[in-house]
């Protein structure tokens, strides 16, 4: 049994940050029966990256609880849910920042649970950070050069210079700490692309960008998807997500509560309960 007060506190925190494009959020509380029948056993699949029953507990608190997820080449999965629902923690566990407490992650049939970040990077799994931390002492170009040295041959049909792709080539010689925050986000994406990943986790790339920048970024992500990357995108901005994702997984309190298209999600009873309260 989850305690309602904690959920309440988290969900109401979200409501302060509600933007126009987000679903309106208020406090929520719901019973376990609402999801008790949800069994997310995806079973066998040929997706390159398969997350099965992944759990991460911090002390007694389960930030991520039995999450399963497939990342399929050429497809984009949206990962949505209120703040604190475990989306970023999930990415952190899959990309080797934290060790999982349970469950497994396999990549091309190989168990990669708990593998350190640099090895995942070389296998073809990469990510961007919610708050980008570019290598500030290095030039923009060196930021890319460092990552490029870990690049590998990939089936993904993406050959562009990452800096040119994201539109940062004109600042290539500038020290990365001098970039604006939106430029740092693009640099973070370019850094991830320079390693030529097969699977890319995007953690709230859109947050804080202007409308025009959002369009630019959405276009970039669509191109990546078309080139054959498997994308997993965490985002609060539904309009932005709609342009890119094929399916979404809605999370609440560490567990997935819905899986399907974004449109179906917005109409789904359980999702509305999470965001609006019953």
């Amino acid at each position, binding site marked *: 049994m989850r305690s309602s007060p904690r959920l309440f506190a988290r969900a109401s925190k979200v409501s302060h940050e509600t933007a126009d494009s987000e679903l309106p959020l208020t406090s929520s509380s719901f019973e376990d029966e609402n999801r008790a029948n949800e069994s997310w056993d995806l079973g066998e699949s040929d997706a390159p990256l398969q997350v099965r029953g992944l759990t991460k507990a911090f002390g007694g608190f389960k930030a991520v609880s039995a999450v399963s997820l497939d990342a399929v080449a050429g497809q984009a999965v949206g990962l949505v849910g209120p703040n604190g629902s475990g989306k970023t923690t999930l990415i952190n566990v899959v990309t080797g920042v934290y060790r999982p407490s349970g469950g497994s992650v396999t990549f091309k049939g190989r168990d990669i649970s708990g593998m350190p970040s640099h090895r995942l990077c070389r296998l073809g799994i*990469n990510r961007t950070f919610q708050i980008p*931390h570019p290598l500030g002492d290095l030039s923009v170009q060196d930021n890319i050069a460092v990552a490029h040295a870990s690049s590998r041959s990939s089936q993904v049909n993406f050959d562009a210079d990452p800096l040119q792709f994201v*539109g940062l080539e004109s600042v290539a010689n500038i*020290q990365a700490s001098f970039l604006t925050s*939106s430029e740092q986000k693009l640099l973070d994406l370019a*850094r991830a692309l*320079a390693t030529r990943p097969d699977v890319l986790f995007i953690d709230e790339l859109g947050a804080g960008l202007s409308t025009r920048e959002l369009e630019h970024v959405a276009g970039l992500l669509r191109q990546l998807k078309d080139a054959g990357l498997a994308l997993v995108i965490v985002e609060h901005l539904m309009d932005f997500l709609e342009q890119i994702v094929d399916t979404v997984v809605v999370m609440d309190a560490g567990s997935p509560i819905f899986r399907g298209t974004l449109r179906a999600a917005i109409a789904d009873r359980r999702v509305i309960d999470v965001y609006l309260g019953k």
Partner: protein
Amino acid sequence: MPDQPTSPTEERFNHENKVGPHTRIARGPTRVWGLPSRWGRWIRRLAPIVLAPTLLGFAPHLYNNLSFLTTMVVYVVLAEGVNVLYGYTGYLPFGYVGFFGAGAYGAALSISYWHVSGFAALAIGGLAAALIGLVLSPLLRLSGAYFALATLAASQVIYYIVANEPWTYGESGTSLPEIFNANQAYFVALGIMTLAIAVTVFIRESHFGLSLRAIRSDPVSAAMAGINVVKARTLAWFISAALAGLAGAIWAIMTAAFYAESPFDLTISVYAIVFALFGGVRTVLGPVVGAVVLYTLYQYIGISNPQYFELVYGVLIILLVLFLPGGLSSLIGHSGNRPRWLRFVTSRVNRAPELLSGTGQPIPHPRASNQDLGGRENGRDGY
């Protein structure tokens, strides 16, 4: 865009804009010292390795005090070792002297017990220090002041062991036969210095060095760029330890008779750090210049009145860290080492071609929407 005059940056990117999986992304300027890049780069690599030892090789003709000169060269090696660790990884080894002492005793004891040759003793000294580095490698889990103080503590623990155990002759004093005469010792020290400079050049130019700088900037991002953070840090730690060990070994062979206090004197750490900071860390020649200038100053005022030298370098480090954190070389060197106010100017200058030429429309480049996002200065809170 192709019709417009392009900035050098854009030119290079247009030139290399198709990057395959095995293409090397060029870095650094296309022309170095006015020479085509490939030649210029090699000259830039080899010049310090050849020039510094050559110039110092003539020093005995100018000032024939070999004991002073050899000690100075030993300090150059130590300053380069601090540079490798502090400059490239940000770990300040306050107890760096522990490696120096381990090297000195590694060499001295191998000569006393096994009567090995001079060069074998040097190698054993370097290895002994690297071995101590291996034992102390858990300290790399710490950061900032904890790391600095923990290495200090570790060096003192090593000192107490060496000083109190009878088999090390720490208390009774070590006395070695003459292995190298003063002249030979000086040139052996120069050889070690050449190695230290070559290692620093390698680190500056190689992908390994770039990885270290990346880790220093942000370890999490660096790991996500595919860098094995623990391995790279540990390797830098071993390199730095081995350099100090070699310096300690040649010092022990040159000094021949000493007590444990001398090679474990904390001022050795302190001088190495101050010399490196004075000349400028993350450069190749900064620590060399720093050690030569300050140790010469020490020779003139420090030996007779150590407190005056202490006052001078005390004031010097305060001023350096507060006003010129990149050391002397930041006044002339690469823009990345310049203090904030200087660097700020430089960044504007670097951007000038792009801002002035008015090439192309800035969309979709996010610069166009700067006004949405606030300034680029990451100001800190009000202290």
